[in-house]
């Protein structure tokens, strides 16, 4: 590596992501127009991504972004109404002067809460959060979701209109209020969904999709850092770390998923697991258990098992049972059935499947039933249900896996 005077792209990207919501916070507060401020920041980010790698970092990147975005915002307002733009200009000049407010972390959280406003559908909240808080460009978000850029741009504009029409303003609900609590649950749910989208984006291997899992972890870390007392915010961060630790081992060279039992556990990220376990233990010690902490605890049991055969399925089954009690979720019951099958034998698992028809994805129920029947030695039944699962699934790797499983069983008889 030689020093060339031009800045590296990766640290610049990190810096932009960190600064984006801070700059947006200042502009949204000054202008009272979150929608226009968000557009202006997006333009400034694109300009920075273009200039900085070539010209080097400005002396104060934050001030540069504030100035650039502020100018665009003023231009936009000037064309609309002259008077208010003067007021805005005065306000922005004060805000963007070098002596002005130091970085205000709280603004980032305020932006995040607004982007996860309850008036939005999860898909809209995800897109807006990635752009306004994550500092991603519309093009990057579009490529992560495999849709054209124009389609994603429309979704984001629509999301901002929805927030405005719902009468949301740029302020944090007071801590400890039910409003704050409800908003925080929503934020955590959106971050969980961003993390979940990680697998979808890994699909189009030729696309330059950002790692949504990394972004979700960064944002969950931020929320946990700002609200360290919240056990579920901690639980969510722990869950993400404990699952993400397996990322290096979970697909093969051709990108096909590798089942947990067949993963090379030496490739799991031990540092991530240790960090996740530490955060989880501290959260559980507060005594305010919740959904994310249970899920994290289950992930931790898998992560701690030196081999698949040494997995403590009894403990996993017990945790799923408790999770089912607080969520009432049929999906959790389905997972519990597999864990019970592994811990207490296939009959125990099959008994738990009763009544699940129509409440969970049909292919998942078929696959689990097939698996338990295979364990019980019912080859014909297992083949039939694996075939049904293969017909009903909506993704390719799973379809191939299930078809292969059915074919093998048919030929080899288990």
């Amino acid at each position, binding site marked *: 590596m030689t020093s060339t005077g031009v800045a590296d792209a990766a640290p610049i990207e990190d810096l932009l992501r960190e600064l984006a919501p801070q700059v947006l916070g200042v502009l949204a507060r000054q202008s009272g127009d979150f929608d226009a401020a968000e557009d202006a920041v997006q333009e400034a980010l694109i300009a920075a991504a273009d200039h900085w790698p070539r010209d080097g970092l400005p002396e104060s990147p934050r001030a540069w972004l504030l100035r650039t975005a502020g100018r665009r915002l003023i231009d936009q307002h000037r064309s609309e109404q002259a008077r208010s733009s003067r007021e805005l200009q005065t306000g922005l000049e004060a805000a963007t002067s070098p002596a002005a407010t130091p970085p205000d972390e709280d603004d980032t959280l305020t932006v995040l809460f607004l982007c996860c406003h309850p008036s939005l*559908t999860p*898909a809209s909240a995800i897109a807006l959060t990635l752009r306004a808080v994550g500092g991603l460009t519309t093009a990057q978000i579009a490529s992560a*979701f*495999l*849709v*054209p850029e*124009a*389609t*994603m*741009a*429309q*979704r984001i504009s*629509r999301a901002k209109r929805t927030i405005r029409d719902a009468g949301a303003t740029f302020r944090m609900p007071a801590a400890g209020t039910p409003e704050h609590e409800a908003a925080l649950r929503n934020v955590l749910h959106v971050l969980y*969904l961003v*993390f*979940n*989208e*990680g*697998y*979808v984006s*890994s*699909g*189009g291997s030729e696309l330059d999709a950002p790692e949504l*899992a990394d972004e979700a972890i960064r944002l969950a870390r931020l929320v946990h850092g700002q609200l360290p007392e919240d056990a579920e915010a901690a639980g969510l961060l722990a869950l993400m770390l404990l*699952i993400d630790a397996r990322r290096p081992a*979970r697909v093969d060279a051709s990108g096909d*998923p*590798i*089942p*947990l*039992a*067949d*993963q090379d556990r030496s490739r799991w990220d031990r540092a991530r697991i240790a960090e996740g376990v530490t955060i989880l233990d501290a959260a559980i010690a507060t005594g305010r258990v919740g959904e994310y902490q249970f899920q994290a605890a289950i*992930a931790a049991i*898998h992560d701690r098992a030196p081999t*698949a055969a040494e997995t403590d399925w009894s403990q996993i089954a017990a945790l799923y049972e408790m999770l089912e009690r607080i969520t009432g979720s049929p*999906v959790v019951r*389905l*997972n519990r059935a*597999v*864990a019970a*099958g592994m811990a207490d034998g296939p009959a125990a698992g099959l008994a738990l499947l009763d009544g699940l028809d129509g409440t969970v994805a049909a292919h*998942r129920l078929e*696959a*689990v039933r*097939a*698996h338990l029947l*295979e*364990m019980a030695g019912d080859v014909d039944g297992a083949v039939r249900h694996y075939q049904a*699962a293969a017909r009903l699934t*909506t*993704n*390719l*790797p*799973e*379809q191939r*896996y299930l078809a*292969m*499983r059915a074919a*093998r069983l048919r030929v080899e008889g288990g």
Partner: protein
Amino acid sequence: MTKYFLIVDFQPGIAETPMEEWQPDEIEAHLDYYRRLNRELVASGELVQQEVLTGPDLAKVVTFDGVTAPVVTDGPFQEFKEWIAGYQIVDVDSEERAIEIAAQYSAVPGPGGAPIQQPITVRRVMEFAPRSTPEMEDWLETAGGARRA
């Protein structure tokens, strides 16, 4: 969000005459309806792609045994009304929403301005990977991998 493929073929619905034989204002109303619907779906961020296809006159069938030269013919084709005339790919929150959009395409006006009730086939697009990390992890943990293949 889930992607659906909405396919329209050459089944005429209740319209008894082909479009070439309609009144000019009927054709205009028909096309306006499509334009308006497409604009709405673009604005809602749901329309991913759409294409209208040429007909059998310009179609070819290609077969190849991997050894000699590929064989290119002008047929034989399936019945004309089974031909795919065009499609939309929409990315929507639910199957219900995909069906709602398909219904709007089906109700495009024909002769006399009446909805022609064209059949629209709704197909879910297969994904490259499980939809989400929990779904994937569940699958890897359970049906996919609890027992070695």
